């Protein structure tokens, strides 16, 4: 009789293996619970704040008429979400991390505030480990950048923090590049170049952004692209926060005009004479020696004592110099 042999069934083996892999790859990812809403607070380091605060929306105490104008608008924008939460609750857990005895928001500020307004006592949360600074800024960026009502200034603040966190994470690298920004943000290099311009904007441009005068990335890119500081400032001074399309067109026209001028200048200039080209340094040196032997130039021999006759660059420089000396000491003296 053949030797008996036994093995675990394939189904069980797969089940066991699946359990081990899942724990190995995903432990802690499903830490969800229904949390008392009073344990949650906003993250003061998140630049995106609805002007509405927890206090404005204290349970049972919302009085629309008493809110300031901007808060009223935000509250009105929040109303559909508040209604939905009243009916069916929050469908997707907000993300929080533990901070002392409370929990701070990573994402879900609107759902949280709307839940407060809807007088919900509990909210579903996904408890995460406190993200490192870079991951936190990145999560906040992802959440914030989708929102159309985010101002350029707010985007700037978030992006600046993201870049700072990135640089802190990679101290040995030079500062973040356009390519790296493109990879982090998942945008095209074109778009990330605009974000890059935003991070690098000078104080005058930043001031204009903060005041709301420059309110989109395309306008920023065009203004920052003006090389002349006076022209740049003139445009900034004339901005009034209205539609930027017309202004972008004007800037492009100014840039085009300048480019045309430059070309025209380059076309008119025919003052240079080509004396031919030499490839052999020895020939160049021989020509040079003939020139420097001139009675009016021999006094300048010491100036050329250290010329490296094996370097085409140095030889070219020596000839430029001697042509200048010839012009001054030989031609003009006549």
């Amino acid at each position, binding site marked *: 009789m053949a030797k008996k*042999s036994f093995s675990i069934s394939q189904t069980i083996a797969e089940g*066991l293996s699946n359990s081990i892999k899942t724990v190995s790859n995903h*432990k*802690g990812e499903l830490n969800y619970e229904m949390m008392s809403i009073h344990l949650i607070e906003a993250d003061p380091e998140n630049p995106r704040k609805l002007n509405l605060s927890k206090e404005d929306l204290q349970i049972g105490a919302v009085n629309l008429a008493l809110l300031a104008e901007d808060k009223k608008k935000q509250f009105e924008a929040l109303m559909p979400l508040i209604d939905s939460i009243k009916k069916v609750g929050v469908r997707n857990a907000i993300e929080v991390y533990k901070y002392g005895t409370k929990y701070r928001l990573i994402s879900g500020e609107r759902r949280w505030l709307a839940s407060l307004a809807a007088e919900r006592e509990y909210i579903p949360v996904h408890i995460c480990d406190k993200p490192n600074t870079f991951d936190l800024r990145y999560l906040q960026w992802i959440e914030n950048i989708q929102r159309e009502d985010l101002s350029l200034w707010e985007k700037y603040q978030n992006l600046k923090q993201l870049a700072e966190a990135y640089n802190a994470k990679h101290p040995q690298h030079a500062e973040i590049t356009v390519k790296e920004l493109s990879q982090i943000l998942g945008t095209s290099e074109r778009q990330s170049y605009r974000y890059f311009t935003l991070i690098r904007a000078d104080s005058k441009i930043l001031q204009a952004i903060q005041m709301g005068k420059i309110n989109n990335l395309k306008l920023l890119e065009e203004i920052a692209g003006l090389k002349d500081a006076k022209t740049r400032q003139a445009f900034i001074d004339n901005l009034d926060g209205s539609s930027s399309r017309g202004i972008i067109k004007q800037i492009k026209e100014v840039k085009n005009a300048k480019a045309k001028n430059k070309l025209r200048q380059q076309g008119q200039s025919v003052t240079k004479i080509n004396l031919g080209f030499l490839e052999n340094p020895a020939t160049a040196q021989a020509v040079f020696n003939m020139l420097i032997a001139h009675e009016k130039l021999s006094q300048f021999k010491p100036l050329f004592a250290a010329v490296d006759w094996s370097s085409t660059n140095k030889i070219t420089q020596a000839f430029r110099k001697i042509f200048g000396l010839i012009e001054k000491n030989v031609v003009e003296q006549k």
Partner: protein
Amino acid sequence: MKIIAVVNNKGGVGKTTIARILAEYFSKIRNKRVLAIDMDSQANFSNRFIKMEADEYDREGKVPPLHPYYDPADPEDKEWDGRSSIAGIFFGDPVYPYPTAINNLEILPAYSTKMLLAEAVSRDEVIEKVYDQLHKFLTLPDLKENYDVVIIDTAPSKGPLTRSVVRAATDILIPSTMEPTPIEGTQGMMHLWKTESLRRDSSNPLNLIGILANAFDKRTSIHKDFYEDLKTRMPQHVLDSIITRRIVYTEVDSEGATPPSIFDYSDSNPAKIEIINVCKEIEARLVEKVYG
């Protein structure tokens, strides 16, 4: 404080035997302060250490004896019937561990009817409360200060009581005989481990000590083959040491046995050597050797 749960939803694989061995190992041999908890309504674990009594309302059920510290004349004990069990945590009753013949080993015994009642809850919100209850109890500062190790025996089930144990544990051990149905039972426990691991945060992981081969018969191909196969598939999660099938383990489990514990045998006794190897390996696999 380590909280070691001994689990397998297949009966007869040796959970209670091994839970008892661990409770004695940590208290007698390693001199730790041990709390044994019996979460099986069959109350066999409790019966190893204290003399359980038949429930007068349900003759098949077991109740703990009167607590040695119970004094019916004491006004403080007026509202208490003198019996205490782990089931008390589900009903808001006082919970007093019982001392045992081993100096630093105490036990919170089962109470059959109350535990069956706790197991029978079906409404979602109540179930969640049951799941969390043991964890809440074991995180009480008084308790954490008084014990180094908690050993919990469970029922062969995946019901609310076992889930509450998995939720409370720091480490789980899955004994199994090397036969098809018990190994299938390990899969159910691995699934509980997986689900619990997903929901825990990283500061409080659920460590899988591993699958412990029990009642192993070296003469049989089936035991050897299943063990090798399991070890090949999950090398990190199957203990290297095994417990072979020996009559002495049944003997020490019977009432009035002399000696009453495997640890009372001589140091050269093969069963004792084997058991100490197993216990040492289990101890080494606990994530942090932090006691107290």
